[in-house]
């Protein structure tokens, strides 16, 4: 799968409360959640994000709550992938389970700025910064996780195994 988009950049410890504040958790409708995505860290995000855009952040992205509403709101907002130095454990799992591509690549995080145009080959983990003409290689996923990703998420994976 190939992805191309403009980058939104953030720092360390972007927590799930700023990704989707609890005051909006009385719904599980992805579209409504997307309207408030990143609201408490960047109130310009939801109104200006475009289909295919990419979030790049530093350490421990998605720390805090287990709310799957966080990756759901990011995906529903149109974001095609998140690149970070590291992801908090539950966010990492949730993203894989719902089919939101995530990549751990500290070199890319250093080499990409806000607004850069970036292209990602999710299968190979190759990240290209088109604006700067540079290229990075993300950590590949273990084969088992790649199977879940290839199935389009955990539900499809479990469904395929059950039938």
């Amino acid at each position, binding site marked *: 799968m190939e992805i191309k988009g403009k980058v939104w950049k953030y720092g360390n410890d972007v927590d799930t409360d700023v990704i989707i504040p609890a005051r909006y958790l009385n719904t599980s409708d992805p579209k409504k959640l997307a309207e408030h995505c990143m609201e408490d860290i960047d109130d310009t995000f939801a109104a200006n994000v475009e289909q295919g855009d990419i979030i790049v952040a530093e350490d421990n992205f998605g720390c805090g709550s*287990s709310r*799957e509403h966080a990756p759901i709101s990011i995906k529903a907002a149109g974001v095609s992938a998140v690149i970070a130095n590291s992801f908090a454990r539950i966010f990492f799992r949730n993203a894989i389970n719902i089919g939101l591509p995530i990549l751990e690549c500290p070199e890319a995080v250093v080499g990409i700025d806000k607004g850069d145009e970036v292209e990602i080959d999710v299968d190979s983990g190759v990240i290209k910064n088109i604006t700067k003409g540079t290229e990075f290689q993300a950590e590949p996923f273990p084969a088992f996780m790649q199977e879940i990703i290839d199935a389009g998420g955990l539900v499809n994976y479990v469904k395929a195994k059950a039938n």
Partner: protein
Amino acid sequence: MGMTMVEKILAAHAGKDKVRPGELVNAKLDLVLGNDVTTPVAVKEFKKIGIENVFDKERIAIVPDHFVPNKDINSAEQVKMIREFAEEKEIKNFFELGEMGIEHCLLPEKGLVVPGDIVIGADSHTCTYGALGALATGIGSTDMAAGMATGEAWFKVPETIKFVYKGELQKWVSGKDLILYTIGDIGVDGALYKAMEFTGPVIENLSMDNRFTMSNMAIEAGGKCGLIEADEITLEYVKGRAQREWTVYKSDEDAEYSQVIEYDVTNIEPQVAFPHLPENTRGISEVGDIKIDQSVIGSCTNGRIEDLRVAAEILKGKKKAKHVRLIIFPGTQEIYKQAMKEGLIEIFIDAGAAVSTPTCGPCLGGHMGILAKGERSIATTNRNFVGRMGHPESEVYLSNPAVAAASAIAGKIVSPEEVL
């Protein structure tokens, strides 16, 4: 080479003799948990899987606790949906308002989690049950759905960091202070993807309620779980409650740890975590002049009977400062009743506190104590992220119940010594 507790629990549930950190295993689950925020998404995903029944009607717990008593129409609709799901699937452990409590206070109290279990919960503070010597960890709604359907989940065997606590605990220093101090030391991602194991003579003498508080906040260091070996104190708590047989797993002497960290607790004073991360800790003597508008005592971190007793010890015969809202949340109906029997509720009300039915309420900025722009709260809760208790420009300071009670009296963050 021996194994750690986590490795042993995972091996036993995966049908293996031995597992190693980094290995991916499929393990059987003893309990799957969800709440009113996460279960609605799990129900939608469960229906997509297309399996008619849940794997075991007795091994799923659904606890509406975040926005209950239902705070608005949307919240009521969410609880209605999961109540209907629980009825349809004949899920035994659905806890209705009035019979419920904050999930992580409730499940151990009901004996639904026992030593040696593997529990996944669609709530990040599921790690609380590590205090019982169980591998309990937070997951999201889709994992909950798959867990309800299959009774299994995949796990990456984590490396373990061993924490050894030695020395003498000072007055007013509790499990909350030990875990805040630890997070302050290693950082909010200091145990990322790893298991934390709390050990040493201080832990061996720590009460169950204080142990729950420590394991509860393992996630605030990024940990997958925070385990304490089950001992006599654990078994005393478990006996008479346990709804299943239990197994005590102990780490081998020659188990391999990624790191061993030792603390002398003698010099640790009550801790306060400043906005906006739990790692921003300071000793109470270094806090300075921080005026507060609200004090919240309760939550899955500090809503147990011992927490209420400590708060009452400070608040007895005193009044909160006029400008402060003091809100106290017992963790479960049982804890509430016990607090009434002991006269604690009367002490709280006489001190000017609002005492609430159990709910997660203000801890996550849900309801029942939201902060306005520029307001500050001291809280015995677990997170002080931006906007956690209300307006994005409000502030939360984390502490133990004694400091939160003393601060309510003083109107600013102070040591309990200053109001006694």
